[in-house]
């Protein structure tokens, strides 16, 4: 038993990888078996991630576990590093994955080939990116994640998906090139790829190499900002996410957060660099521009998935602006906001399809997809076994209203708490010379974006729920409404347990910054 506990840090990578390999070998005809393997692997991952969360919750916030692959000695070994932040992210991934696979179990897992395999490989890439302590392995896990996401984006096929996929892949391949350039420049200057080692060697970098190092770090930053969809390089996101099938889009909600996560890690690393606030202004103003762009896009979109895509931009922009402060209290509330906004956005992506079902079928991409795959008979059979929830529309309406309140940050739900704590933290972060003008602008933007979000979702809600001729009541199965209840339940749980959750986050943030200072 102790042996397994020692290997806990690598399990979130190994479990989905093995599941993915096994799923590749099974023929597509055994759809039920594949789905069962997928669900069991995801459940196992959830257990592992909860163990991780518990393990890093017992010590103080700076508890870090270094896992050396192959047990090589320290400077040679490729390392995985687990700490509270990565435990939180891995737990978020596994909850999200459980919801998405439950939703996909209704019918999406048969919408094309290799859905289950790609799903598990995406989880492997995500968990790897959160747990790696090595810059080049981060690249490898990034590519695993992206390769799986290309496949998942195209899942279900159809014109819109292929077109969005083409742009998405081209953009990400170009960003990966920048990533590689950045990694190799950092290696050329510091002579190591291990993140902790880089941080240790940064102060000893000679002055003539600093510009080269900063160029490398800037290239890395651009690659991650592209992934986090900062304003001038984030145009691909709403189209791609709106085109993806709902379970895939819901899982993609965490992918833009991977960029934010790596930027947080990098900025903590740079704390040891001495160059105070390297690139922080870029994060602040870029983040604010992203909020503005996301808000305008949110108000101007007509269909719900595209609107939620712009919601991802608003959330990314908020997080990027928060990172620029480099303050433990701000970071703690930002991570809390990250969890809430990811769950809410995933929930809205799932809801958008359920709401679309009751509407005119010609507007539905799903119909085209099913036609292309000749799945009509199966749908009829599902309608017979499917359970129609009484007062479906009421359930959907309540879920939608809760999501809208969470995303906009309306009291009394946890979205409000997250935004409120972020505002309090940024205003409280300037203890000396008073609150800067940029901070006031940021706070104003947060409030305005929340109001615009409410306005946009209110309009959509009125159009969907209060129109008398909305068509027939959509047929919703329990496994489809289940994940929505799960995500909303988690948000409510984070509200009820806000004090312990925030204590966890604050310890985590203090631990992060203490590591870089020490």
């Amino acid at each position: 038993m102790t042996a397994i506990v020692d290997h806990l840090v690598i399990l979130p990578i190994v479990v989905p990888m093995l599941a993915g390999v096994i799923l590749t070998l099974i023929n597509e005809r055994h759809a039920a078996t594949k789905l069962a393997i997928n669900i069991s692997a995801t459940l196992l991952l959830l257990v592992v991630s909860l163990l991780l969360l518990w393990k890093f919750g017992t010590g103080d916030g700076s508890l870090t576990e270094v896992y050396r692959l192959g047990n090589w000695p320290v400077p040679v070994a490729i390392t995985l590093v687990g700490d509270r932040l990565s435990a939180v992210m891995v737990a978020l991934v596994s909850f999200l994955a459980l919801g998405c696979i439950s939703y996909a179990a209704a019918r999406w897992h048969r919408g094309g080939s290799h859905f289950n395999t790609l799903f598990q490989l995406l989880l492997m890439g995500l968990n790897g990116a959160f747990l790696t302590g090595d810059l080049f392995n981060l690249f490898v896990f990034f590519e695993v994640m992206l390769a799986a996401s290309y496949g998942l984006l195209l899942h279900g096929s159809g014109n819109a998906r292929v077109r969005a996929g083409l742009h998405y892949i081209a953009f990400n391949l170009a960003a990966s090139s920048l990533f590689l350039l950045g990694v190799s420049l950092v290696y050329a200057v510091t002579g190591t790829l291990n993140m902790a080692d880089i941080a240790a060697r940064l102060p000893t970098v000679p002055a003539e190499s600093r510009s080269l190092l900063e160029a490398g770090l800037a290239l890395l930053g651009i690659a991650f900002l592209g992934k986090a969809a900062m304003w001038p390089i984030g145009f691909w996101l709403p189209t791609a996410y709106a085109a993806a099938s709902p379970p895939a889009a819901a899982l993609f909600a965490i992918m833009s957060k991977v960029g934010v996560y790596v930027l947080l890690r990098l900025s903590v690393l740079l704390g040891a660099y001495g160059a105070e606030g390297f690139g922080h202004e870029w994060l602040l103003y870029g983040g604010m521009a992203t909020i503005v762009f996301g808000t305008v896009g949110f108000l101007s979109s007509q269909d719900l998935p595209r609107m939620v895509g712009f919601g991802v931009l608003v959330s990314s922009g908020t997080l990027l602006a928060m990172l620029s402060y480099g303050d433990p209290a701000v970071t703690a509330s930002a991570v809390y906001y990250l969890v809430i906004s990811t769950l809410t956005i995933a929930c809205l992506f799932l809801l958008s399809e359920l709401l679309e079902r009751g509407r005119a079928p010609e507007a539905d991409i799903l119909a085209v997809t099913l036609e292309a795959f000749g799945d009509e008979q199966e749908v009829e059979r599902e309608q017979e076994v499917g359970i129609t929830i009484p007062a479906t529309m009421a359930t959907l309406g309540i879920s939608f209203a809760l999501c809208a309140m969470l995303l906009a940050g309306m009291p009394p739900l946890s979205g409000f708490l997250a935004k409120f704590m972020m505002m309090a933290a940024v205003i409280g972060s300037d203890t000396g010379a008073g609150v800067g003008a940029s901070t006031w602008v940021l706070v104003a933007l947060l409030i305005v974006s929340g109001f615009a979000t409410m306005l946009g979702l209110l309009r959509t809600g009125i159009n969907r729920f209060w129109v008398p001729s909305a068509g027939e009541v959509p047929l919703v199965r329990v496994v489809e409404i289940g994940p929505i209840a799960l995500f909303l339940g988690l948000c409510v749980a984070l509200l009820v347990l806000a004090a312990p959750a925030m204590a966890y986050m604050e310890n985590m943030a203090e631990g992060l910054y203490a590591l870089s200072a020490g």
Partner: protein
Amino acid sequence: MELVISLSIGVLAGSGIWLLLRPRSFQVIIGLSLISYAVNLFIFSTGRLKSDAAPILETGRDIATYADPVPQALVLTAIVIGFAMTALFLVVLLASRGLTGTDHVDGRER
């Protein structure tokens, strides 16, 4: 050697970026390939340029006479990943061509 390497990286990257910004999907994929060649050469050169130096250590010889093995390992990984991604992009490109009937990256002629 430095001049040749830097010129070839520059020419490859420049042509790649130009092609990447073109409207035909075939031009985009060739552009991405050229960029990845440039990046691979660049990674290779970050281990410092040396000729006649082995990357495998033998005991008892001066470590300064060896080539750095890490960038070589990195470039190998990058080549493999780049190759796989290019193949994947090619499939999507063909699917897009088949579905939309045009090789424009936006799926329709302007």
